């Protein structure tokens, strides 16, 4: 408390600096971020240092354990697992993050609108019910049938299928977030501070951004963390069903799925992708934790 007068004399600094300071001092969040940055860098820059092509087949070197030539071993066709992990990670991370963001933005938007504006509640929640009820696999078959050729022609086979996957996973996973956010907003709307803010004539837009959104942040953070894992896993089950990326296109989910059969022969093969997915999810989870704490003014500075 003795520091307070000094701080007042300091030049005004934005609240985001406070948030950052708080975030940095959160051990879990800090290490979560370090791990996450390492994973992202490894996946992005790794291929510049490691020159083996992830699709190159060296049939004499198949089913090998970790060695100097192949730090993570090779698969049943003799492809280098390390290279495949890096190239798979790019896709998995991109799919996970984009689909999660898409779901988050859609879910939060619809949840807040439905919870805050009574007139929109009915229609938006019925829409949510509809999406919850849609069978994902037939829906994907339809989407792929309708749009694959169009998108492939425009963005190339891989780009096209990437856009398809991300949007398919994104638009079918926002509903839970929307329902949760709406539930919280419904309760928040009746709280004293919201009533107080409304009584002084705060416009709706500022009500939402200033008072409602910050207070529903924790369920959103949890949804985001779980959303990444769900997106990566959904992508893997889609690849398995033949609806995902082309077969010679590794992703973490696919690497994990392919290696399950070899669980007893070469356990290492399962561990790499499994660990990568878990590490990413954990890192994001801790970052989410830290961010939530940092954004809560009641905890900040504790």
């Amino acid at each position, binding site marked *: 408390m003795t520091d307070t007068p000094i701080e007042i004399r300091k030049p005004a600094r934005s609240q985001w600096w406070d948030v950052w300071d708080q975030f940095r001092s959160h051990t*879990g969040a800090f290490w979560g971020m370090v791990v996450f940055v390492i994973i992202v860098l490894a996946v992005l820059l790794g291929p510049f240092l490691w020159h083996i092509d992830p699709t190159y087949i060296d049939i004499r070197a198949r089913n090998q354990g970790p060695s100097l030539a192949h730090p993570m071993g090779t698969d049943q066709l003799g492809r280098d697992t390390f290279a495949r992990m890096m190239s798979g990670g790019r896709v998995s991370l991109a799919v996970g993050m984009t689909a999660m963001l898409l779901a988050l933005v859609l879910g939060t938007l619809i949840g807040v609108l439905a919870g805050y504006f009574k007139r929109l509640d009915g229609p938006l929640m019925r829409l949510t019910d509809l999406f*919850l009820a849609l069978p994902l696999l037939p829906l994907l078959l339809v989407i792929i049938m309708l749009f694959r050729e169009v998108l492939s022609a425009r963005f190339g086979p891989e780009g096209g299928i990437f856009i398809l996957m991300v949007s398919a996973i994104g638009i079918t996973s926002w509903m839970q977030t929307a329902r949760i956010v709406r*539930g919280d907003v419904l*309760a928040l709307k009746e709280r004293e501070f919201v009533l107080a803010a409304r009584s002084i004539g705060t416009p709706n837009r500022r009500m939402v951004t200033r008072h409602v959104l910050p207070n529903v942040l924790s369920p959103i953070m949890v949804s985001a*963390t779980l959303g990444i894992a769900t997106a990566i896993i959904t992508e893997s*089950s889609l690849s398995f069903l033949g609806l995902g990326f082309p077969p010679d296109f590794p992703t973490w989910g696919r690497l994990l799925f392919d290696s399950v059969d070899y669980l007893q022969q070469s356990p290492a093969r399962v561990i790499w992708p499994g660990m990568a997915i878990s590490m990413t999810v*954990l890192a994001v989870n801790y970052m989410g934790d830290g961010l939530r704490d940092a954004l809560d003014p009641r905890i900040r500075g504790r």
Partner: protein
Amino acid sequence: MFTFTLRRLILTIPTLLFISFVIFMIVKLSPSDPTGNLPLTIPPEVREQIREALGANDTLLVQYGRWLEQFFWIEPRVYLERSFGWDLGTEGEIRLLSYQTRSPVMDLIMQRMPQTLWVVGVAYLVGIAIALPIGVISAYRQYSVFDQVGTFVSMVGFSVPPFFSGVVVIVIFSVLISTDSMFWLPSVYDTTHQVTDWESFKYQFRQMIMPVMVLALQITAQISRFTRASMLDNLNQDYVRTARAKGVRERTVVLLHVLRNSMIPVVTVIALGIPSIFGGAIITEQVFKVNGLGQLLIIAIQGGDVPTVQTLTFIFAILIVLFNLIADVLYGILDPRIRYD
């Protein structure tokens, strides 16, 4: 609240009809074919005849209309007849038949209900029972060892897909442990097993352990995370401080005041999850050969079995709409300030 519930219930009818139509169009438009999984030795003319006999070649509206009639008019009467012995004149009417088995879809669903409820339902209950205490304690003792371990285990558990964790437990408990050991667990779920006495109950219990374990891991992870987050939000609120200042016992503060106020997101997640109990768990069922509703759905999708997919998904939709309504009513009970009128 009562008028709200009533109004919502009436409103669900057009909603569900619309949902059923959208589902029908999607299922019908998706390019899988009822004869797609037959051996290639069956020539195209024969395939065409099969499609014709299934009624898969009629116009979309005719097929949708037929499904509506069968689902809403014929099937309920058949079941009324069966349970009360009445005669409602369903003799000779074509029931809602699956393409693959050529038998009534509703009977297939009823046949699979027990094993699905046993495995997925129990897993859900176990998951909730474990998740709530974990969530509450982790929040109350934020960043304690318990919280750290709980977070770690639940997040790793959540990021491991069941096609992997299922095989791992099978390798450990069915392969590596010898068959004579008391820790050995069957890897194949026996759906013909009937519980009649203590011995058979014990067997049923053993064969349920692994699938329930794998499923409960996912459910626990999810619900405990939401409980923890929501508890954390509330623990720092002014009313908690007030209650403590008034000298209310800590136990009462946490379990009565904070927990109740933290339940809204938890109730939402649980309510959203209950329909999925009836939807089954596709991958887990596949790994342990439970063959419940999830397996029925995936086989039907792969086999282009439109009536089965449509019926299952629609029942699923009914449950979703219903449980979301229940969640809305629960919000009002948990927080009396929420009013819908």
